[in-house]
């Protein structure tokens, strides 16, 4: 299912964080969102998931995401992760996944205890490589494992759009590699959008790259095309002053 963003604007007290962004996010390809600090990448995801208020339109299925509450957006099939992996540290990996899987359960079943684990959860555990750690509290996981758990939580929800905010930041080289492979595995059946800083990683795994700068889309294309783009080079190499002034609070 395609998510179509048109003319999205987000303002914070007069500061324009997203300035008329239009984007088409299609399933089946690994879509990367890049840009210097303060470009508005996280804000874009925030706006699409009900965390920041934006104007314009974000059409998904028959709904405009900008008009929906966060939990309803999730129920519609649009999931996200956070830069700081936020999992329930006191609950086990399994419980974390089970709570995520709750989207598809009838309400009254909340009144029953959890028994065993569903096939779907077992499958996801396998996919994200956390089977061994299923019973451990999520708090003991490494940074990378927490990110995988977050992705796993989206997988058990069967989100058809996954918005991942810097999933490989702070990971070791091997973990990055594994994550990239994981993203590649899950992207054919869904829309996966990844915010990333590391250009090597982008180059290796991206099908499509969108470059944001100062709240606007300045380029879109394959990694190779982006690399050649003069405007992108100017933004990344020159013009650092503008990026610095807009960094305040952004993407933090």
């Amino acid at each position, binding site marked *: 299912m395609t998510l179509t963003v048109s003319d999205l604007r987000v303002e*914070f*007290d007069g500061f324009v964080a997203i300035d008329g962004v239009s984007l088409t996010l299609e399933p089946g390809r690994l879509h990367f969102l890049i840009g210097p600090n303060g470009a508005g990448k996280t*804000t874009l995801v925030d706006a699409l998931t009900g*965390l*920041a208020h934006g104007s314009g339109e974000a059409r998904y299925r028959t709904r405009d995401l900008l008009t929906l509450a966060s939990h309803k957006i999730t129920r519609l099939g649009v999931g996200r992760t*956070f830069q700081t992996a*936020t999992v329930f540290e006191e609950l086990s990996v399994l419980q974390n996944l089970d709570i995520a899987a709750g989207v598809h359960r009838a309400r009254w079943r909340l009144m029953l205890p959890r028994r065993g684990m569903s096939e779907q959860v077992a499958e996801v555990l396998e996919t994200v490589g956390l089977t061994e750690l299923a019973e451990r509290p999520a708090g003991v996981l490494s940074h990378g494992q927490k990110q995988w758990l977050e992705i796993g939580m989206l997988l058990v929800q069967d989100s058809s759009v996954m918005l991942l905010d810097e999933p490989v930041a702070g990971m070791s080289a091997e973990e990055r590699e594994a994550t990239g492979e994981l993203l590649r595995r899950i992207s054919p059946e869904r829309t996966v959008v990844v915010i990333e800083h590391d250009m090597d990683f982008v180059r290796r795994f991206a099908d499509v790259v969108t470059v944001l700068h100062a709240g606007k889309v300045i380029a879109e294309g394959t990694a190779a095309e982006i690399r050649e783009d003069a405007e992108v080079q100017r933004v990344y190499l020159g013009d650092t002053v503008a990026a610095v002034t807009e960094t305040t*609070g*952004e993407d933090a």
Partner: protein
Amino acid sequence: MDALLAQVFTGISAGAVLLLIALGLTLTFGQMGVINMAHGEFIMAGAYTAYVVSTIVASTELSLLIALPVGFVIGGLLGLALEASVLRWMYARPLDTLLVTYGVGLILQQVARDIFGAPAKEVPAPGWLDGSIPILGYDFPLTRLFIIVLAGLCVAALLAVLRFTALGRQIRATVGNRDLAETIGISTRRTDRATFFIGSGLAGVAGVALTLLGSTGPNLGTSYIVQAFLVVVVGGIGHLKGTIVAALGIGLLQAFLAHALTGSVAQVIVFLAIVAFLQLRPQGILSVRTRSLA
């Protein structure tokens, strides 16, 4: 017209009392996130300070003026002791500070009861606050006027400290970004202590002032603390201006309602109005957008 004016004056002076008791909280609660229930007992300590000073200083004309700075220091020292002994371990658990400081408050109440006895004490008001002056045809009691002026002075002093002194800059820097403040060489521990000293000292001043309005008992603080917190919450946590507006607004509302209804019903309606208000503005009068997960 006169009745209306009387309500406005009553409301403003009630607001000034609220402002005085809540001012210190805007620092400790607003800036530091500590929910200090013992703030009420610091107020009580200020009131007893006024009582003790009045027994030592023969001149009733002077004792109030002496008690004000002494009350500030006593309240401040109590706050400092609380911060150094208990609260410094609890900055990661702001909600739990509420219960801990409530416990401290209970102990302080009992200490007061053991030292001064349960019956309330009267502090003689200085002669120069006797009587009233006519303002717009309304006889305004001088004690009330004094409290309004005192509240104004405290706000001005606090603003001046925060704006123009090195300490004020350090406090604002620490509140803004604790880690960053530390990296630029600010001792955040020292700043915390100073903030707490000033905030608690203001409670002491409020306590001294309250002796002008009524008698002083061990439970003095409990009767004010809930209102004080509501003022800060309505004003928007951490906003001095919001606190001023909220204190005056609540004072006026209470005065008008109390005139129309009975005092207790008025108080209940004010509470409910505050709950309703927070429906509209969950972050208080002056709210700031944040980009954090909130």
